[in-house]
């Protein structure tokens, strides 16, 4: 069990204030407030349909029609993410993975990872067409970086293989590698352990730590695997029916009667 990490400088990176998202009559997220501090690993938990992925989609601006405020703090001030188009969110340092994997099946693993570096490129379509020396050196530089990231994740030897047909555990890593290529300050993982076997899930604990240490990122993750959440998260936020239940150290949340009830019904233990 991990301890709450001592924070030398406690600065919020992401703040949600009273965020509400409605689909037709359904309130998928209902007045949720939540602060994530820089360098933290925060878990967002809740039963199926609690609105966790909806929260992620609001933060990454795939949904724009939410009420309330989602604020990102950067070195040069705060940004209201609502003003940021969905394709610009990554330029503000937020990247994400997808619950159901969203990769290009007919590109190699390396090329898929390079898609994550899209905003890191300086050269445009004309220099690509003519393959100018600059485009060439930039491409090589990015491939080297992709190689490092793949190496870090232990899948560098697979880089030339097509994504189609690869096992789930590998694809999950490709998604993480792709997000890391964007040099994020905040990385959002949507159920990183879903579909992994026990061994892979155990390795994921260490990996998430290493991602924070090596790439100096804050991590926000949704997860159903309680062991993983308890092991890696500094703090956990529990929601149910889109509403805030509790937030705190994993142990506190685990023992919270409201959380236990939401997951298992009354009079049972998590």
């Amino acid at each position: 069990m991990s301890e709450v990490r001592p924070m030398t400088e406690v600065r919020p990176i992401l703040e949600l204030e009273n965020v509400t998202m409605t689909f037709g009559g359904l309130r998928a997220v209902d007045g949720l407030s939540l602060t994530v501090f820089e360098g933290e690993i925060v878990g967002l938990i809740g039963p199926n349909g609690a609105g966790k992925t909806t929260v992620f989609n609001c933060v990454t601006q795939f949904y724009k029609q939410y009420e309330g405020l989602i604020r990102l703090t950067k070195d040069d001030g705060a940004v209201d993410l609502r003003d940021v188009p969905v394709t610009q969110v990554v330029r503000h340092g937020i990247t994400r993975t997808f619950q159901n994997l969203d990769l290009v099946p007919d590109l190699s693993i390396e090329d898929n990872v390079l898609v994550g570096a899209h905003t890191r490129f300086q050269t445009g379509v004309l220099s690509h067409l003519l393959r100018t020396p600059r485009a060439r050196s930039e491409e090589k530089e990015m491939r080297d970086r992709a190689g490092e990231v793949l190496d870090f994740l232990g899948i560098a030897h697979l880089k030339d293989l097509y994504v189609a047909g690869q096992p789930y555990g590998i694809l999950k890593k490709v998604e993480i590698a792709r997000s890391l290529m964007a040099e994020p300050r905040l990385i959002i993982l949507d159920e990183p352990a879903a579909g992994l076997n026990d061994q892979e899930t155990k390795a994921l604990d260490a990996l998430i730590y290493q991602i924070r240490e090596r790439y100096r990122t804050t991590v926000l993750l949704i997860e159903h695997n309680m062991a993983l959440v308890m092991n890696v998260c500094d703090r956990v936020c529990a929601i149910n029916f889109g509403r805030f239940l509790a937030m705190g150290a994993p142990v506190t949340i685990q023992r919270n009667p409201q959380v236990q009830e939401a997951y298992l019904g009354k009079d049972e233990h998590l």
Partner: protein
Amino acid sequence: MNRRLTAQPCGTSILAAIGRRPLLQFALLAAALLVIAVLPHLGLMRFSTMSIYAYTAIYTVVALGMNILLGFSGLISLGTAGFIGAGALGMGVFLRMGLPFEAAALVVLAISGSVGALIGLFSLKVESIYLAIATLFVGEILRQVYTSVPIFGGEFIRIGAVRLFGVFELNQILQVERSILYAVIVGILFISMVLMHHLVKSRTGRALMAMSRSEHAAQAMGVSLLKYRLIAFVTATLYATAGGILYALYFQSAPTRAWTLNVSLLVIAMVVVGGFKSIVGTFLGAIIIYGLPNLLLKDLLGDISYVFSGALIILVILFYPRGFVYVGHDLRRVVSTLRARARRAP
């Protein structure tokens, strides 16, 4: 799909070595096509046959653009013929106005590219079958414009001898000059292939594929759908228009009634039959769809040859839905398993 399928062909055979070097493939292909420029002068081929190869090369340029749309970007256009016509007829109009060939080509490409950009904008609003229908009508409108606006000369615009770089006057009636024109077209085909290869094996190509295959991830990684749909449509339009310009260059006359839906459909068939995302496959497609019926079957079978090419298309789609070029992949796999078996045998 084979789990161990790599993006690069591996092995040590000559074929695998060529397979790893796309630029070498394009060069070999261009060299083979250039040989054809000489054959009629040696009495080994009719000049009309060389024209069929020229037309195949022109079709390949157009189909390369279609492959950017269909193969890489998951978009479709049924208006291709309209843009080939824009290239050919536009050249006719501007050459008659006295513009030098190269200047006329640039103007035509700029106009066509702008219209392509408009369609790209439009494609953000409409998807798949609706996009097909919308572009179908863009093509039909263009065709109507060509046949009814007097500037296009009614039946056709006669262009006559063309002066390249202000110096080389080439007239397709003269046999030697026709061969030179043919060689120029093959050269531009080669350049088109190289440029397309550069484009698709870059950040731009990856963004196009991500846009069509993993739209949400593409957006999360910063790929603007608007920008890359524009890039896809403008590139495809420019390739189609370049095909039309080559047509004007080689045939030195531009018909107004030829740019029908049938032509657009043939171009799509070339991509589907030849190979999605494959540059060499696109040429194969042009050979199968246009070249073969006109070169071989027509002499043997007359008009019924189109029935056979139709049947061929259906066969390819049934057994090689990704395109004929992938027959090579399968052959390689069969050969390597046979070899492995032979080694294991005592």
